[in-house]
């Protein structure tokens, strides 16, 4: 492993056995996570972003889901090969997860305080009193008012935003080195979402953990991420720093994602929609999985999968358009206009 990497994923392939065949949900994903950074994984439902993180946590649904190939290195150990018992020592302690729906990820019959203390008692060998003090500290950290009385309440007595704070407190309980947040704000209102995002950034500064942030909302990505990986049909199609991916996108799918969101300034007649639907991953297409929906597709796209082409030291994209023999293609007008308009907003804020 490289020195400042905390996690390395190499050519990870995850499949599910179903009645109609093997669903190849993740088809060769490689990335690394550096210390203290936030990596956002974006993609549509079914792109494999959640499955990737479930594999990281060893939470693939059994017995259908399995890691078919590849490795996940954490502390120089391949955690895909670990026994469940050894994985339990990592899960919750070294790597913790925040789930999308705060309504279902808390136990409705357990007091909130007890749920936060659970991890402390199990992993930290704390006594009950110490765990209680730590739990109150955590609730203060996530800014839940009156923690002493709130910890005796049940989840249904909390609002959605407050519940998500509880979930974050639980995840932070054992000072994890990696925090995986799977759409943590999708179920929340915009104003509450803004609060939770600010809170997460704040906490990251204080406790210095690395975050993998899964979302389909590009606005949220722009807000929280240092680096972005765009996933499509079980593969990473573009990865780079947040500025590179938003201001200099190279993959037609990224263009599509950016173009399909209206800007607040825009008054264009029609949104740039990506036609069609994602491919069936039981029988993934032979070449580039996005080719059928891509108006810039080349002949080779239907024959051979594109490798990752280097754009800069940190920016890579898997599209044949970056091959030196490929015709020069410009992003669609709407995407170019959007990027230009963002330059304006840069001047305005200065």
């Amino acid at each position, binding site marked *: 492993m490289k020195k400042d990497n905390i996690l390395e994923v190499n050519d990870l392939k995850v499949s599910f056995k179903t009645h109609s065949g093997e669903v190849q949900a993740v088809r060769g994903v490689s990335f690394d996570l550096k210390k203290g950074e936030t990596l956002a994984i974006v993609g549509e439902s079914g792109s494999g972003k959640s499955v990737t993180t479930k594999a990281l946590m060893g939470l693939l649904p059994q017995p259908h889901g399995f890691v078919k190939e590849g490795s996940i290195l954490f502390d120089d150990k391949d955690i895909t090969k670990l026994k469940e018992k050894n994985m339990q020592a990592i899960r919750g302690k070294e790597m913790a997860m925040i789930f999308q729906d705060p309504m279902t990820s808390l136990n409705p019959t357990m007091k909130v305080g007890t749920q936060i203390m659970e991890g402390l008692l199990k992993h930290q060998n704390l006594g009950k009193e110490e765990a209680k003090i730590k739990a109150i500290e955590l609730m203060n950290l996530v800014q839940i008012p009156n923690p002493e009385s709130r910890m005796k309440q049940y989840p249904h007595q909390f609002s959605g935003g407050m519940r998500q704070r509880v979930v974050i407190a639980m995840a932070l309980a054992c000072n994890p080195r990696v925090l995986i947040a799977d759409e943590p704000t999708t179920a929340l*209102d915009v104003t509450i979402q803004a609060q939770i995002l600010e809170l997460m950034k704040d906490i990251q500064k204080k406790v210095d953990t690395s975050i993998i942030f899964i979302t389909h909302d590009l606005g949220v990505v722009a807000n929280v991420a240092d680096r972005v990986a765009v996933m499509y049909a079980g593969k990473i199609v573009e990865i780079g720093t947040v500025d590179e991916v938003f201001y200099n996108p190279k993959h037609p799918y990224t263009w599509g994602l950016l173009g399909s969101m209206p800007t607040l300034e825009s008054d264009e007649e029609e949104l*740039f929609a990506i036609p069609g639907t994602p491919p069936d991953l039981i029988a993934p297409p032979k070449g580039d999985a996005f080719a059928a929906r891509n108006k810039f597709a080349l002949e080779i796209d239907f024959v051979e999968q594109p490798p990752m082409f280097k754009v800069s030291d940190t920016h890579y994209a898997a599209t044949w358009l970056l091959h030196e023999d490929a015709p020069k293609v410009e992003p669609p007008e709407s995407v170019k206009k959007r990027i230009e308009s963002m330059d304006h907003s840069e001047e305005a*804020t200065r």
Partner: protein
Amino acid sequence: MSQEKLLEIKNLKQHFKLGRNNVVKAVDGLTFDIYKGETFGLVGESGCGKSTTGRSIIRLYNSTDGEVLFKGENVQGKKNKSELKKFNRQMQMIFQDPYSSLNPRMTVMDIIAEGIDIHGLAKNAEERKAKVYELLETVGLNKEHANRYPHEFSGGQRQRLGIARALAVDPEFIIADEPISALDVSIQAQVVNLMKQLQKEKGLTYLFIAHDLSMVKYISDRIGVMYFGKLVELADAEELYKNPVHPYTRSLLSAIPLPDPIYERNRKRIVYDPSQHDTSEEPEFREIGPRHWVLCTSKEFEEYKKEKQNTVTN
């Protein structure tokens, strides 16, 4: 866009009783008009009463008080069956969740034709079939889909079915309650484009309820912002985003994350504090500029008007 009022909502109230002394005022005195051919966007956070408003307008709830006039005719209150039927043909709804709003045991053909059957719009089976095929094509599906069941479709396709079902009885007015929030980004754009195109072709009027403010801005002509059962601001879409006046609208707009990293790094969020208002006076809905209404007290009204003039002269 004409200035002909299609729908007038006057002091609409929807209160829910929860036990003896506990009344939830989900919608508390709404007054606004929807013009023919426009898209009226209704935004607000969960629990502000925006969905309840939509459901009260279409009589899914019996409203507690107030009037809803559709082409000058009250749609609330007691009605006999034939009156209801007539009204139901003019107003249709598209629901948020494309998974639970389609009966899983009916074929697409029967789902779409249900309205056609109820209103007797097809003389025979042939005509019924032809109508369904036509509707499927209108929403970008094809006639082979007619004999399938909802589970065979993706989220975006199901929402297209929901739209086809709403269109089946040739309505003039469609209430779309968060029609795209359950869909993926790339599919959202497809559905929004479809809705816009249908509006142009058929001259439909939409009430578009959503919490995704950038999409609402994109599709709407006018936007109303709701907070705790009341409209706090109503203006043309451009105007509302450029010159928001009510502090709640400002805070809501400042919370939208935009896909622009540099903007996001410099974003200043405005926090709304309801106690900043003077509570000694009951706020009223007043027009501070042309077609721009804000809920305010008389003192705030003067301030807002001054601010407004300043922005205009600048």
